[in-house]
């Protein structure tokens, strides 16, 4: 290994064993997160983004099963870690923020108590020292008069403030990897932008690595260094933000980019990707996206495409990149876009 990555996932496959059968939630995903990097994972609902986050923390329902692959955190293989070992990692090296700020905080515990709990995970502090640190954290996430607000219950805060508090809790123990599971989806656009800028600030100040799950390409563009596109439990394309937004190669990425309101000229109907994601109870043979793909080749229905390397940082899984494939011109909006 040349450089130790904060987080590395190798050939991870994960299934849910349900009464109806096996659901392949994650199918052979490999990715890495460098130190101090923000990686955005983008995809439709149900494509496995959240499951991927939770599998890093190993906080999955009991019927979830890692079929193969390894997860490395700071070079340690945590795939076989026991619950006890994971508890050591959670809240110290790994941390997470969630989508819904209204339900993630304990409603009957004061904000101060919830912050102190997280702070005291790493270092034993006196009550006063912990309170001071808690107020600092609230300051960091942009909540003033933190000291006076520590005694308040979550209900005294607005949704945006609660998300900031949740972020403060996540940052309380100086984690090295933050998994952000759509932390801005439930917020209005103004607050959303503030939170994104905040995350960037925090990254600059603490050198935190962030996996940011979203289904909003605009958010990914504003925040991410690299972007991974997921579809039906697979990573279909990954590259730097520039590569994804200006030089994408996968038809699904093209579809997503064409669906952006800014990609459509005024007066025209917004574009959408036809069809529905496949039923993961019985995933189709070949490429899962083939049915909805206007550029699908015959081989897409037969065999799933491997990753083709476009540049050292940019890979995409589509047969279009095979040298035998016909030359396809991506939609205009994907070639010259301004974000």
């Amino acid at each position, binding site marked *: 290994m040349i450089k130790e990555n904060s987080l590395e996932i190798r050939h991870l496959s994960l299934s849910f064993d349900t009464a109806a059968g096996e659901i392949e939630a994650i199918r052979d995903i490999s990715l890495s997160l460098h130190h101090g990097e923000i990686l955005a994972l983008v995809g439709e609902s149900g494509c496995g983004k959240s499951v991927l986050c939770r599998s890093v*923390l190993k*906080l999955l329902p*009991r019927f979830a099963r890692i079929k193969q692959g390894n997860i490395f955190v700071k070079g340690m293989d945590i795939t076989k870690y026991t619950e006890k070992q994971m*508890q*050591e*990692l*959670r*809240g*110290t090296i*790994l*941390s*997470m923020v*969630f989508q*819904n700020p209204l*339900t*993630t*905080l*304990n*409603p*009957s*515990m*004061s904000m101060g108590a919830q912050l102190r*709990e*997280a702070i005291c*995970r790493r270092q034993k502090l006196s009550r006063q020292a912990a309170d001071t640190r808690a107020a600092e954290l609230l300051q960091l996430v942009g909540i003033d008069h933190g000291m006076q607000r520590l005694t308040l*219950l979550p*209900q*005294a805060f607005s949704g945006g403030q609660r998300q900031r508090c*949740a972020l403060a*809790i*996540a940052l309380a*123990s100086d984690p090295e990897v933050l998994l952000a599971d759509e932390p801005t989806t439930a917020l209005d656009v103004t607050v959303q932008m503030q939170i994104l800028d905040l995350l960037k600030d925090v990254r600059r100040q603490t050198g935190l690595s962030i996996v940011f799950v979203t289904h909003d390409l605009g958010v990914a563009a504003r925040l991410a260094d690299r972007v991974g596109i997921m579809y039906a439990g697979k990573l279909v394309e990954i590259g730097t933000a520039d590569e994804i937004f200006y030089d994408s190669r996968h038809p699904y990425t093209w579809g997503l980019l064409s669906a952006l309101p800014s990609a459509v000229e005024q007066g025209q109907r917004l574009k959408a990707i036809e069809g529905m994601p496949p039923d993961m109870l019985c995933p189709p043979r070949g490429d899962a996206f083939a049915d909805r793909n206007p550029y699908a080749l015959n081989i897409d229905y037969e065999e799933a495409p491997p990753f083709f390397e476009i540049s050292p940082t940019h890979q995409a899984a589509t047969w279009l990149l095979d040298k035998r494939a016909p030359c396809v011109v991506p939609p205009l909006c994907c070639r010259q876009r301004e974000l």
Partner: protein
Amino acid sequence: MNFQKMYHTIWCKLAVFVIAMGILSIAVFYVSSYAPGDPLQSFYGERVEQMSPAEHEAARQRLGLDGPVYQRYLSWLHHAVQGDFGISFKYKEPALDVIRALIGNTLLLGSISYAIVFILAIGLAVCCALHEDTWIDRAICKIGTIVFYLPAFWVGLVLILLFNVNLGWLPGSGAYDPGQSDNVLNRLEHLVLPMLVMVISHVWYYAYMIRNKLLDETRQEYVFLAKVKGFSRFYIVCTHCLRNVAPTIVSIMAVSVNHILGGTYVVEAVFSYPGIGHLSIESAKYHDYNLLMLIVLITGALVIASGLIAQAVNERIDGRMKTAEGGASWNRSHRSA
């Protein structure tokens, strides 16, 4: 303004309390008056049968049992308000004295069982919640359900048969051996079996309720956040979840006061334990109105008071209940300002 409000609330609650007691006393008075049977029998015993009708009538008059029911009720109320609850026909002493001698036994049995039932119920519930969907949880649930459906009197008899008759380890009746009323050990010995019956017949009902509440709580998203913080399930259930379930537990505890008190009545009857449960069954049987009224009123007062206390405790535990009101009044005062 807060004081005024508190004052108001307390008055309201007192009014509710008094009205409830009034309704309760009327209902019990009427029902027991119209119940078939002759109250004179408890006072004069066998002699009643040899009385002439005239003597009979005179005796009724002496005991205040003549006249229409409402008149007797009013006269009872008139005396009761002044602290005179009449005499017990059977014991021929003031009813208050009769009860005073026995209520301690019942309170002892009731409160110890109450405490054990809830400590055990919470413990079992936490144990089940920690081991959800494992054989431990399933075993506890199955055994608990079976035990819960065993009738209390039957359990009592079986325990007496086992520990008293066959093994001879523990006494099977009474609250203490003759002349040992101040001997704590002797009293405790007599308490073991009745308490066991109380616990066996009540604990699962509450444990199951608390268990389900806890399991609901563990599905909440804040539990997930607590896990992300790196805490163990045990810690999360005990500090985060129990805290949110606490108001429910307190409410259940308040409602259960009469349930457990009622339970002591059955247990006292099985173990001939001298308490007011035993006494109330006796007084109902012998139409000992004054005694019955007093027992019912004391029990009723206890139940109503426990409800009011539970509400106050809940407001203390869960800040939300209080601040909701506080917030509203804050708004009001600002608007008026």
